[in-house]
């Protein structure tokens, strides 16, 4: 069973079906904010053998100026969402989520939630109330995943996280859907504060291993392999950068930015390199096969990097990431998964240094990012004794 999930958004073309046909897909997280019901229904029907869940995305309305283009069509618009909502209002939101799932033929539910700015403010109690109400209304007939959409700075203090866990682990749910709002990040790939990432891994470990919930992480990317190693059963990423790192900006009106520069994800470097320049030089280097094991990809990048389109980049990224995520998950035990990820990170880090020494002009952020991952993982292992 694959552990890689797709975080669906608009403009999916055939990306999901290709992963599904390749046996790389563990599940799909539908995005009702981005697509009308017929499109989501079609996605669900095109992937009959994997779990499909609807992220209700009610958290959009807890983001200042947050809007969701297609929510009205799903009956999921909650413009009056506020932390003082009455129990009856919360129940109405939950029932709207159940109805939206029913219309799409989705059996198991992700509970609605809000973005939690910290783990002990007024929004936290509303998030818990939404979770409890969903569990209560749904009963035992369908599996319920509690949503936890948490701003990254809320992960700064482990004591706060642990106190939240004491409450959250009292919920009689089947799983958790965990998303980190990378509120301070704007560039791709987003950097992590290592202690925040350590605490996120500990949160996942506590939920999945100590408390036996199924844990799905959403809007993830390469850090998804760390999350799988820490105990998550699924990690989701999408084809756009905004589907690989959650940020408030995705939900706020904008005049549109400049088009993204195509990147080519290197499995051997665990880094999304710029196709033109970085990817091109690596594909011609002596480490080309380790960085890009697929010969067609090496050839394309080495000979025609300008032809590496955003569509190609998106599909290639998902396929490559899925391969790594699924491979880590198949290692079995948590220590074995962690060993595998540490090995991959060490290898990737060593290759980056070698390539830098050979004159490939990488952004310094790539190496720093891998070092952050390694440090977070080492701290996590030490603190949890795994």
């Amino acid at each position, binding site marked *: 069973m694959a552990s890689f999930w797709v975080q669906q958004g608009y403009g999916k073309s055939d990306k999901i079906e290709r992963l599904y046909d390749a046996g790389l897909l563990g599940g799909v997280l539908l995005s009702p904010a981005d697509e009308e019901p017929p499109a989501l229904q079609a996605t669900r029907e095109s992937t009959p053998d994997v779990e499909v869940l609807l992220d209700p995305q009610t958290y959009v309305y807890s983001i200042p100026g947050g809007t969701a283009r297609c929510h009205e069509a799903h009956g999921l618009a909650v413009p009056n969402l506020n932390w003082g909502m009455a129990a009856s209002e919360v129940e109405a939101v939950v029932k709207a989520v159940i109805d939206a799932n029913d219309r799409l033929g989705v059996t198991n539910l992700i509970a609605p939630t809000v973005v939690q700015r910290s783990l002990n403010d007024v929004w936290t109690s509303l998030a818990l109330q939404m979770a409890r109400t969903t569990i209560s209304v749904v009963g035992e007939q369908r599996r319920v995943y509690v949503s936890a959409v948490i701003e990254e700075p809320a992960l700064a203090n482990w004591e706060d996280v*642990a106190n939240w866990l*004491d*409450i959250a*682990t009292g919920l009689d749910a089947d799983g958790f859907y965990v998303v980190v709002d990378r509120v301070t990040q704007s560039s791709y790939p987003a950097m992590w504060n290592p202690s925040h990432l350590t605490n996120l891994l500990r949160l996942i470990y506590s939920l999945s291993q100590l408390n*036996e919930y199924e844990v799905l992480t959403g809007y993830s990317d390469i850090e998804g392999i760390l999350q799988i190693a820490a105990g998550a059963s699924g990690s989701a990423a999408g084809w756009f950068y905004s589907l690989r790192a959650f940020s408030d900006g995705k939900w706020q009106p904008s005049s549109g930015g400049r088009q993204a520069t195509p990147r080519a994800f290197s499995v051997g470097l665990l880094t999304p390199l710029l196709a033109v320049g970085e990817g091109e030089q690596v594909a011609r280097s002596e480490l080309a096969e380790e960085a890009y094991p697929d010969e067609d990809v090496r050839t394309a990048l080495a000979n025609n990097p300008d032809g590496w389109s955003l569509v190609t980049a998106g599909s290639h990224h998902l396929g490559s990431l899925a391969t790594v995520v699924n491979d880590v998950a198949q290692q079995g035990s948590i220590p074995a998964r962690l060993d595998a990820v540490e090995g991959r990170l060490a290898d990737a880090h060593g290759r980056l240094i070698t390539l830098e020494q050979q004159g490939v002009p990488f952004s310094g952020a790539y190496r720093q990012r891998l070092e952050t991952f390694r440090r977070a993982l080492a701290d996590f292992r030490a603190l949890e004794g795994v």
Partner: protein
Amino acid sequence: MSLTCSEIAEAFPEYYFVKELGDGTFKVACLVEENGEQKVLKVSKASVKGPDANLPERLRREIEAMKQVDCENIAQVLDGPGVREIGGEERVFYIERFYPGETLDKRLGSPWAAEDTSALLRGLLTAVKALEEAGIVHRDIKPENIVFDEDGKPVLLDLGIAYYKDLSSITEPFGPSPKTPRWAAPELFAMRSTVVIDSRTDLFGVGVLCFEAATGGVHPFNPDDPEHYMERLNSGKIDAEALKDASVPESLAGVLVRLLQGAPNRRFRKVDAALKASEAC
């Protein structure tokens, strides 16, 4: 509030009075006999007004809970509650089944065999599971509240300070929970309104008792040294040497360590999971 055994014996001529079993803060317990069957008669020290008076809420909840929970590891209420004039005042009484084994505190002198500790663990977890299913947290699992039946099975007594998840609280939310400190989980020391009290709180108490049984009375966190006691309790730093000294098998020690974690989220989430783990010990 004073109440003597002779006053109780006089008020219940239908029973043969055998002996006093205990004289607590709120109740007196007497061993009585009826038609050759031994029972425990418990009488509340507080008086109530008139035979139709409302029972004190805490006592009403305790008796209702014991009647509601059907588990051989929880003391069984046979009759009551009733109100009768005892010692010149109207008082509440009820009858419990008598369990002939002594209380656990009398058996903690030397380390128990691993299979006996495991049996105690499973019995207490079965009791806590039954309470969990009824939405009740005992909050006072301690050696004096454990007796043994004819077959040597542990039986949990006294729901006097239990917490009922579906009922309004009758304790002050801005103060700590009622408890017996030596066997209390760390969250019972914190302000009620800031912590979660659920079955995991009772798992901690079970962990302390079974640790004491396994080690011959050694407390996992050494409350006799009050300096840094709360720190040890919150961090779950147990006296691991005591487990080694008593040659407690690894599988049993592993379960005890998990039960004794300071943060509830690091214990077993459900009593059933603890019970399953204990079955492998």
